[in-house]
């Protein structure tokens, strides 16, 4: 059952990620990105990270995608027309994909393919993440809070016409 769910989510994930690029209409790309995020949340749940699956749906599929769609509607972005492919560009792209793939393949250790059947004891992962966030990682947590404040002020300054 876990295998079936993994392959189902993986196919939906990769397929919708490709559709984000292939679609000419920006709204269709944004909706494909929502599908990709939901498939990724499913994979997080399969890995036992239930809290992160929920955060993924709230923050990404909720807040971030609404922001994207809002900006698409606001700017009235037109569908992109196709441009002719250039041989140099295609060659450079294929070389990049080859080098990236080779690098990733060598980075995966052989021990990663051994079936480790032991399942984490179904603990309360939100509680353990919370204990880590307010314990060992309290300084980065505060720094991220400060980053959010700075970003909020920056966005307000950027969007005002005359400061």
């Amino acid at each position: 059952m876990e295998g079936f769910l993994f392959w189902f989510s993986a196919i939906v994930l990769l397929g919708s990620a490709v559709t984000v690029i292939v679609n000419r209409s920006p709204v269709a790309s944004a909706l494909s990105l929502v599908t990709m995020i939901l498939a990724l949340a499913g994979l997080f749940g399969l890995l036992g990270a239930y809290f992160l699956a929920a955060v993924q749906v709230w923050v990404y599929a909720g807040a971030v995608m609404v922001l994207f769609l809002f900006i698409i509607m606001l700017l009235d972005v037109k569908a992109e027309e196709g441009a002719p492919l250039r041989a140099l560009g295609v060659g450079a792209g294929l070389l990049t994909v080859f080098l990236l793939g080779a690098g990733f393949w060598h980075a995966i250790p052989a021990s990663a393919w051994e079936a480790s059947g032991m399942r984490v004891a179904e603990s309360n992962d939100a509680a353990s993440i919370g204990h880590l966030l307010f314990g060992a990682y309290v300084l980065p947590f505060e720094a991220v809070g400060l980053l959010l404040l700075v970003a909020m002020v920056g966005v307000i300054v950027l969007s005002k016409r005359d400061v």
Partner: protein
Amino acid sequence: MGTPTLGHYLVLSGLLFAIGLAGVIVRRDLLIMYMCLEIMLNAANLSLVAFSRFSQQVRGQVLVFFVITVAAVEVAVGLALLVSLYRMKRTTKAEEITALKF
């Protein structure tokens, strides 16, 4: 279809990252390029959660929490930049923004 191992998740994450990188290179609309950046960040998150699950440590999930926060900040600031750029240039195409081109 056996139980997926760590290698399955890492290959999936690598493929997702490659798709995002290809999107940033291929597409010329700045909005779509932002979406492809999100795909790449999500690919990194997937490998972090997979490592966290297979090494039985929650610390990887804390890192993913931070990455999601920083990605939300990046989208907010980036889209505000895009809106103010659109006010000046009336375009969101990367190739028509040439003020800093040498």
